[in-house]
């Protein structure tokens, strides 16, 4: 039945030659697991597009509704948490896939003549993907979204001359708010998808015009070619299933909860960007004062310019890794640099400190103490108490029996167990300037 239908359509549309062009593409040296990364990236991108479209069914891009609609998707719609989890983890997976794809191309020297254009379009696709990540991060409108985007946009302000203007253009005005979320939404779901679709088509078009690079090993390359279909397609499908399984498993096992609703007045929140921006985020710590612009725009610009120019700088036609020590060494050096553990020492909150913070709320400490502008000044302001009293023992003793270390204090004794004492003290010790 299906084949007869196909025949009927084929008689009219003449699909056979098209089918041949698409499926019988020769793969030099035969199908290989080495070539699955591009397909895996494309598959993940399609997955992102699909889950993204479904998220849009309930999502509303406005400051007064965005958070509620994402909560609704996460907690009330059947399967909503799964779709959102897939979109969240899929975003990370797509970055991993792009990274592996680029590494394979880099290692195999597949960016060299005549494939410079394919590489350049690929680098642009990477930039578009990063823009997807950045614009998508704001959309849930929780604390993390708000503050991470705030930091991200402010970094653009370091660009000389036009920095201020760019910041305003990104925000749609002076502040991050209603206009920002709607333009980020439009960019995320309309502008970037069109751009990336064109980019992907161009990338594939060039691939078909130039042909796949095949193995760098001459003897293997000369051993003959194999058609793209069915073995390479099969290998790609196996990898896609694996990738799908991993993303689904992550979505199921590691739910991605929302932080609190975005609160522009809460300056105590420490945002953490997605891991693929982490290197960049942490880099800023090492670029104090006047060096700031260097980290915020000069280095990223150098990075992308370097990638774009790579095929023109490295003009050695030899693709064999063993005869390209300098280029591969530089790449390896870069990888080691970005994976330095130090750079990833994110100021993630110690869970004990978070519990301590909750205790402050639980025992209504702020009915007598002020912390960063919240609460009442009956007792001492605790905003920077650890500057005055860095001594852990003193706090432990003070919570157990306030009057024993602070005679005449009217602070009541609270019924705290050992763990709570520790958590509260850990939190108190974080209250310091700088």
């Amino acid at each position: 039945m299906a084949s007869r239908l196909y025949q009927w359509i084929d008689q009219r549309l003449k699909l056979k030659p098209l089918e041949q062009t698409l499926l019988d593409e020769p793969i030099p040296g035969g199908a290989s697991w080495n070539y699955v990364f591009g397909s895996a990236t494309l598959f993940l991108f399609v997955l992102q597009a699909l889950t993204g479209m479904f998220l849009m069914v309930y999502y509303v891009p406005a400051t007064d509704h965005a958070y509620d609609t994402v909560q609704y998707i996460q907690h009330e719609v059947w399967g909503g948490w799964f779709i959102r989890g897939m979109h969240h983890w899929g975003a990370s997976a797509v970055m991993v896939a792009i990274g592996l794809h680029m590494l394979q191309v880099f290692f195999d020297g597949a960016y060299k003549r005549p494939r410079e254009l394919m590489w350049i379009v690929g680098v642009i696709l990477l930039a578009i993907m990063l823009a997807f990540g950045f614009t998508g991060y704001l959309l849930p409108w929780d604390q993390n979204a708000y503050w991470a985007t705030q930091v991200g946009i402010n970094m653009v302000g370091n660009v000389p001359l036009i920095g201020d203007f760019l910041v305003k253009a990104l925000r749609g005005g002076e502040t991050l708010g209603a206009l920002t979320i709607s333009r980020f939404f439009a960019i995320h779901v309309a502008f970037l998808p069109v751009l990336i679709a064109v980019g992907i088509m161009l990338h594939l078009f060039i691939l078909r015009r130039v042909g796949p690079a095949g193995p760098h090993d001459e003897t293997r390359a000369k051993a003959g070619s194999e058609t793209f279909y069915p073995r390479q397609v099969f290998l790609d499908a196996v990898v896609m299933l694996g990738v799908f399984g991993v993303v689904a498993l992550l979505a199921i096992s590691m739910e991605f909860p929302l932080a609190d609703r975005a609160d522009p007045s809460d300056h105590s929140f420490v945002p953490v960007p997605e891991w693929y921006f982490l290197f960049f985020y942490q880099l800023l710590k090492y670029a104090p004062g006047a060096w700031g612009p260097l980290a915020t725009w000069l280095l990223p610009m150098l990075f992308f310019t370097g990638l774009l120019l790579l095929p023109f700088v490295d003009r050695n036609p030899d693709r064999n890794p063993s005869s390209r020590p300098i280029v591969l060494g530089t790449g390896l050096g870069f990888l080691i640099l970005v994976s330095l553990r130090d750079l990833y020492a994110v100021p993630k909150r110690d869970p004990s400190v978070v519990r301590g913070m909750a205790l402050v709320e639980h025992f209504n400490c702020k009915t007598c103490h002020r912390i960063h502008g919240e609460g009442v000044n009956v007792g001492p302001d605790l905003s920077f108490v650890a500057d005055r009293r860095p001594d852990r023992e003193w706090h432990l003793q003070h919570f157990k029996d306030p009057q024993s270390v602070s005679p005449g204090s009217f602070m009541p004794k609270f019924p705290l167990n050992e763990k709570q004492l520790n958590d509260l003290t850990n939190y108190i010790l974080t209250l310091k300037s700088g």
Partner: protein
Amino acid sequence: MEDGLSTPVGTRRSFFVKSTVFISSLIGISLAVPLIGYVIAPALQRRNKEWVSLGKTEALPIGEPKAMDYTMTEKDGWQESHTTKGVWAVKQSNGEVTVFSPICPHLGCGYRWDQQDRLFKCPCHGSVYDINGTVKAGPAPRPLDTLPSKIENGDLLVQYEEYKSGLAKKVEL
């Protein structure tokens, strides 16, 4: 085939083809189920009906219809809204209370109580009902719709429902 271009044949080929089809279907189904469920789930959800107190029954006059406000919180997806509907309550001499939906069963207009004629009259198409909701005149296909109600500790509790108009039988929407 061109020179040097090979392709798997025979059972080897059909293994690759069938496996690819199988894997694609597996991914497709694993995606389709949650995605479709996600979209249609709200359509399958039944409206949550709650008992709302309209006030004490003592205050109601016997044998006289009284317009009462039914205020409910409606969940509309991720939004919550408060709406007020006016319903008609009629207290019988035995203390029981009948509550009528404010919507004319003919075509959904709002009817009113004519004190002089002691009849409920719908201004749209002239349906007329007596105090028990029985049709007295006009095109109405069925009596006025009663709403589920009960009395607890002297409070009149009502569930708001809506019914299809124009039918001889009362069918809930």
